[in-house]
């Protein structure tokens, strides 16, 4: 029978079908960070269980870490205790740790691919919903809760019910200055934040095939914002070039690599494979997207007005009103005329080298608007190093930006980087929930190029037609 990419990965990992309709699925990689793991390790201690495969378990610190020059010494005693707990847990269990001060520390979803921990055809989990990022490699990657983190540590498996498959095809070519961030925001605007619940997306079509690995990671990253368990993109030459191009220590070598490649090449969905649901989007018609509300499904084209109460499909008038009130906006208002206080370029969605290059290309030779603050936070210490080798840091600093160290930073404000109440932020991150970037803060989600242009103009601009001074 014809199989989808998802089916092929799933079938390869079934340890045993269980009588209750679930399957015991083998997990090839387990990524761990400081926030969602301490209770899982404590559970192991209390039951006297051991980590079954420390060599398949990788750990870093990202949510809590300061990203300014104080990064090596966490002042908040509770954050510090959490980071120290991870150090102890990794040491006791023989788990790889890229801790604070390590050359390879960074956001867990940035360092996985960077180190070659992520390759095609795997099952990969992490106690973090943006684990879907790794699906860009054609690997089944999804977020789990702490109880499941403990389950994976103890058994290297998970009990799972087979999800549905949802094919999202982007036909045609993207317009200049429109990026994968706009594709995924557009999708979520169309299907809502629960549209993919119970499913695994497979992103395909001409516009997806044309994307770089980094751009693919941005799309898969936000699968969870569409409610899906995971997002997948079939591995192709772009994937293999990424994996093999640089020194990625955990990618198999020699004969092992050749054997793996044989399987990887067979992973793409068979031409006549059936999906539970299919959606086609014309990529050539996608405009730069900006979120206006408090849910990632509340998005508009940059040149469209903020919608009225009855104009948002999938949201009740009451929910729209609450969102408008929280965001300090009125129906009909233009986001291109609404002043911003902060621009944040970073997060597991958009903090990779290509994202920084795009932002730098816009900022080159320009200055940020005087009234606002511009933060650029690379996703990993390696991204930071690479950006500095290319001189991007100088472009950012000359534009008046803060050039930071790696971490989750203002995406979730669990560290010192946060919005003050009512501050309005253009953010390249993934969630515009109430209070996400700091209690009372107002988040607008955009691509790195849109964020950089907004930093110069002081408000959003239509990047397709914008010239400084307009």
């Amino acid at each position, binding site marked *: 029978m014809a199989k989808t990419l998802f089916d092929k990965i799933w079938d390869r990992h079934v340890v045993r079908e269980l009588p209750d309709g679930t399957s015991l699925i083998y997990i090839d990689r387990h990524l761990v960070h400081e926030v969602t793991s301490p209770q899982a390790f404590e559970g192991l201690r209390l039951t006297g269980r051991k980590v079954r495969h420390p060599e398949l378990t990788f750990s870093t610190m990202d949510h809590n870490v300061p990203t300014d020059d104080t990064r090596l010494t966490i002042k908040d005693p509770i954050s510090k205790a959490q980071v120290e707990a991870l150090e102890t847990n990794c040491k006791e269990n023989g788990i790889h740790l890229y801790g604070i001060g390590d050359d390879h520390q960074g956001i867990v979803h940035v360092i996985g691919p960077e180190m070659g921990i992520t390759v095609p055809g795997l099952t990969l989990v992490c106690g973090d919903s943006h684990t879907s990022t790794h699906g860009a490699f054609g690997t089944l990657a999804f977020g789990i809760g702490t*109880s499941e983190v403990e389950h994976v540590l103890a*058994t290297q498996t998970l*009990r799972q019910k087979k999800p549905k498959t949802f094919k999202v095809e982007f036909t045609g070519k993207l317009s200049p200055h429109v990026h994968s961030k706009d594709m995924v925001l557009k999708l979520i605007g169309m299907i809502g934040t629960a549209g993919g619940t119970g499913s695994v997306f497979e992103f395909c079509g001409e516009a997806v095939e044309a994307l770089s690995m980094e751009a693919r990671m941005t799309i898969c990253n936000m699968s969870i914002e569409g409610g899906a368990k995971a997002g997948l993109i079939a591995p192709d030459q772009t994937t293999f070039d990424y994996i093999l191009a640089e020194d990625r220590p955990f990618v198999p070598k020699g004969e092992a690599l050749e054997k793996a490649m044989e399987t990887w090449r067979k992973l793409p969905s068979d031409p006549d494979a059936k999906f539970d649901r299919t959606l086609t989007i014309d990529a050539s018609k996608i405009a730069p997207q900006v979120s206006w509300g408090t849910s990632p499904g509340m998005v508009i084209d940059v040149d469209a007005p903020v919608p009225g109460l009855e104009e948002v499909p999938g949201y009740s008038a009451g929910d729209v009103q609450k969102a408008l009130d929280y965001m300090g906006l009125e129906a009909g208002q233009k986001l291109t005329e609404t002043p911003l206080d902060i621009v944040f370029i970073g997060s597991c969605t958009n903090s990779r080298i290509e994202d920084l290059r795009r932002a730098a290309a816009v900022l080159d030779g320009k200055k940020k608007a005087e009234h606002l603050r511009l933060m650029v936070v690379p996703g990993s210490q390696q991204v930071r190093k690479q950006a500095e080798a290319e001189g991007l840091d100088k472009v950012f600093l000359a534009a008046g930006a803060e050039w930071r160290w790696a971490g989750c930073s203002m995406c979730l404000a669990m560290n010192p980087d946060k919005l003050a109440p009512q501050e309005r932020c253009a953010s390249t991150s993934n969630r515009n929930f109430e209070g996400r970037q700091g209690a009372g803060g107002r988040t607008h989600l955009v691509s790195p190029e849109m964020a950089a242009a907004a930093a110069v103009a002081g408000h959003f601009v239509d990047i397709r037609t914008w010239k400084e001074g307009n």
Partner: protein
Amino acid sequence: MEAITTHRGIVAPLDRANVDTDQIIPKQFLKSIARTGFGPSAFFDWRYVLTGEPNPEFELNKPRYADRSILVTRNNFGCGSSREHAVWALAQDGYKVIIAPYRGEGDDFIPGFADIFKNNCSKNGVVTIELSEAQVETIFQAVYDEEGLEATVDLENQQLTLHGEAEVTFDFEYDASVKNKLLKGLDDIEESLLFVEDIEAFEKTHATWINQ
């Protein structure tokens, strides 16, 4: 995990859709390395005003809901972050059951709860009941109409009964494996370790494609 078969309690309303786990438990409480102590922080930003006093505007703060243990809410509850702390907070704040509406049918069916949240509930003995939007609307109206309205959840028979002026009973669907686990209070890891020989056999031939 404690077994749960039936539960009777007061129902409280949260009339919002797409309640995300950032709202259920904000990030500042995620720094804890303990598994307890989250209850008072559930819905923190809505529940308290900036000075730390309870917010009288927040509907769950009304005295009539002080002893509630069943929450009725709108679609896509628990979306966003995978943080299990959200479920710990609700459970430790006294919620045993959460009711939310599904939408559509067939391929267009959208469940009432976000995947990871629902899964996390199942690991902590919190029952998640999905009913149609019309049925959930009936419950909201009954809760608003009658102070102290109680409901009984019978998980074994998959029935929810509202003890209003007239008793109303709804049947609900429940995943068989999750139901069995909740009824018996089973520990997942212990269950899976029964298959350790299968795992060992699988590992002998399965390539994990890692350079050690």
